[in-house]
């Protein structure tokens, strides 16, 4: 059984739980702080980083603006090179297309390259229902799959697991999925990697269908690009007879020259490497070399709706480097699962509510899962102003407003659960716009300061459970100024 994100609680509740998990916090802290420092060093090596970053943002913006031109061009070039292009409006359609394609081969097993988009569509569960077994071949994805777990990081899906836990998962679960773990497996990283290698090798050699995503699609030639560190991707992309790639439409770049920008931005931001160890590129099919059949499934699944929002659309620039997760103080404490989707951390907080719409309390809570500290924006290699989008989406939640759903523009109503807050904000806004009233309130607070409680009841507990309340001074600044400077307030 593969687990799904369905029915996850809203962020604050899930995050409160994971925040209490000391082991998780220690694992995450160690992992994110290590990569944080390495990334900063790798980025500092390039003098023109800021210009690269601006170019990365500009090329994506322009391409997204002209997808109506680049996508047909991509389709034409993939087709000319011997591939077949399929269009999927949503996750179900993509899963149906892939399932049918696998069925048509008569195979019952597939090997998978790590791919975010097939996590997004829940492809493994769909294949399972159709009696097809999908094997994850990325080391961390394998750990997640064997452990019947959910990924909690874009790049390192098993970041929440320690070495010992991984050893236990391998020892207890590998046999259910194929070659068992070697006797007496230790938790040394080299031993764990070797166990995974042996377990996966027989699958690479046996499976006739491979499934992948892609980091980039080059429209001018119809070339797909996958970057990775382990080499498992290269195996899945070259050994099977049939290759099916499911890719979000926003992964398009116009030309090979544009890759120059992203192949510098991506590895330094994600793994802090100058260049990733494996970069696989393929254009359709080639006789006697690699898969004989190549299918590209282009996925929308909320992307064109997101594109219609002029503030929110910048989220589609994302190249899934995960730098924003690694610097996020909220992600570090809450962990990835609290975000209720395969896209955790700051990017998840702006992407999930847009791709899925403000569909449930979970999506409504995500734009608030940030202190707006801005660390994510600072590191993002394509300069997505995540705090700006968060604030914009907060507005959609509390005030409602125009959104695009399924290509249709509609106006959503404010979320119900924010009614009390809305009233309070309205009152505060009114008081701030009437300084005389504000002054009366300040004076009342000053006069009653001796009897203020140290802890608040109701919603105020959220503050005073862990923090002392500030003491109200005897005299506001306003009153002090009036008293000492003799000016009439």
């Amino acid at each position, binding site marked *: 059984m593969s687990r799904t994100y369905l029915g996850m609680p809203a962020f*604050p509740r899930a*995050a*409160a739980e994971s925040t*209490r998990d000391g082991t998780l*916090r220690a694992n995450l802290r160690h992992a994110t702080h290590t990569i944080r420092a390495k990334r900063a060093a790798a980025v500092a090596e390039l003098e023109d980083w800021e210009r690269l970053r601006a170019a990365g943002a500009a090329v994506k913006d322009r391409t997204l603006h002209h997808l109506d031109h680049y996508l047909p061009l991509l389709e034409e070039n993939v087709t000319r090179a011997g591939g077949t292009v399929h269009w999927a409006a949503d996750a179900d359609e993509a899963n149906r297309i892939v399932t049918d394609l696998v069925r048509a081969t008569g195979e019952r097993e597939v090997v998978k390259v790590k791919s975010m988009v097939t996590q997004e569509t829940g492809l493994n569960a769909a294949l399972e229902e159709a009696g097809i077994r999908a094997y994850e071949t990325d080391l961390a994805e394998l750990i997640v799959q064997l452990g019947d777990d959910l990924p909690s990081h874009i790049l390192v899906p098993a970041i929440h697991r320690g070495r010992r836990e991984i050893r236990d998962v391998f020892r207890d679960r590998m046999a259910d999925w194929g070659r068992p773990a070697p006797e007496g497996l230790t938790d040394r990283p080299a031993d764990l990697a070797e166990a995974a290698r042996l377990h996966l090798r027989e699958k690479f050699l046996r499976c006739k269908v491979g499934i992948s995503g892609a980091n980039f699609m080059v429209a001018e030639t119809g070339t797909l690009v996958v970057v990775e560190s382990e080499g498992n991707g290269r195996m899945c992309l070259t050994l099977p007879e049939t290759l099916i790639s499911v890719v979000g439409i926003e992964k398009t770049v116009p030309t090979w020259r544009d890759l120059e920008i992203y192949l510098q931005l991506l590895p330094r931001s994600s793994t802090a490497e100058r260049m990733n160890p494996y970069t696989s590129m393929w254009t359709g099919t080639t006789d006697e070399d690699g898969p004989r059949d190549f299918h590209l499934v282009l996925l929308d699944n909320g992307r064109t709706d997101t594109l219609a929002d*002029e*503030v929110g659309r910048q989220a589609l620039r994302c190249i899934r480097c995960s730098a924003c997760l690694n610097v996020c*103080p*909220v992600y570090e*404490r*809450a962990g990835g699962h609290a975000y209720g989707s395969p896209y955790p951390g700051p990017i998840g907080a702006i992407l999930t509510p847009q791709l899925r719409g403000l569909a449930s309390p979970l999506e409504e809570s995500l734009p*608030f*899962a*940030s*202190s*707006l*500290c*801005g*660390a994510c*924006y*600072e590191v993002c290699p394509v300069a997505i102003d995540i705090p700006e989008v968060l*604030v914009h*989406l*907060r*507005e959609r939640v*509390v*005030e409602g407003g125009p959104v695009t759903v399924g290509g249709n523009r509609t106006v959503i109503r404010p979320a119900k659960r924010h009614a009390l*807050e*809305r009233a309070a*904000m*309205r009152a*505060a*806004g009114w*008081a*701030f*716009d009437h*300084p005389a009233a*504000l002054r009366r309130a*300040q004076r009342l*607070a000053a006069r009653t300061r001796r009897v203020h409680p140290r802890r608040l009841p109701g*919603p*105020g507990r*959220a*503050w005073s459970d*862990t*923090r*002392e*309340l*500030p003491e*109200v*001074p005897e*005299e*506001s*600044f*306003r009153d*002090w*100024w*009036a008293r000492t400077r003799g*000016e009439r*307030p």
Partner: protein
Amino acid sequence: MRVGLFVTCVNDTLRPSTGRAVVTLLERLGVRVDFPTAQSCCGQPLYNTGYRHGAEPLLLRTAAAFADHEYVVTPSASCAAMVRDAYPRIAARAAAEGRPGEAARLRAAAERLVPRTYELTEFLVDVLGVVDVGARFPHTVTYHPTCHGLRALGLRDRPRRLLEHVEGLELRELEGADECCGFGGTFAVKNAAVSAAMGADKARAITRTGAAAVCAADNSCLLHIGGTLAREDSPVRTLHLAEILACTDGVVP
């Protein structure tokens, strides 16, 4: 030189000592300080929580209150960032919404206010051109560069340079200084558990410095940090940077 002090609602109501310190400090440096009483709140609590429309009247009010001042100085990095980053954005959003009349008024107000608005340390270092403000504060102090000061405004080493020139002050390095303290306005109550966890980590790092006080350029963060420190019975007290810079007799105001 006539400076309008934008004290901010938090300082006005909860930390008037910071406002008084800014007045003392600027007057000592020969600046004429004015406090236009029509000012209130920059609108940040509303804007950041999603109530952009509720922030519009406060944008207009703030701009009108300081219409006549050559410089507008505020002892709050986040309120300065609100003016600089969010005010033009609020005007642009109104235009995008098809409200040209309001958009024009908002844009005009923002355009007048933004170039004259300075966070206190920017004003001292960039406009007055001083780093030694003649302060004496013989205590150990650590400095927390708040997120908006660090990333939104890019205050860089301005606060540190000012602190380094305070007579008798010993500056202690804060581990993980650039990490958020977890305040984040309404985040502190909407995601109280994560906010508290971030606050506790920050408080621990502050206490570990062994400093007598932690200072910052923003009192909202300090209320959260101070509240956490007090709950954990830490001996470290919180001070706004201005209160240290205003001090000449070495006594904590």
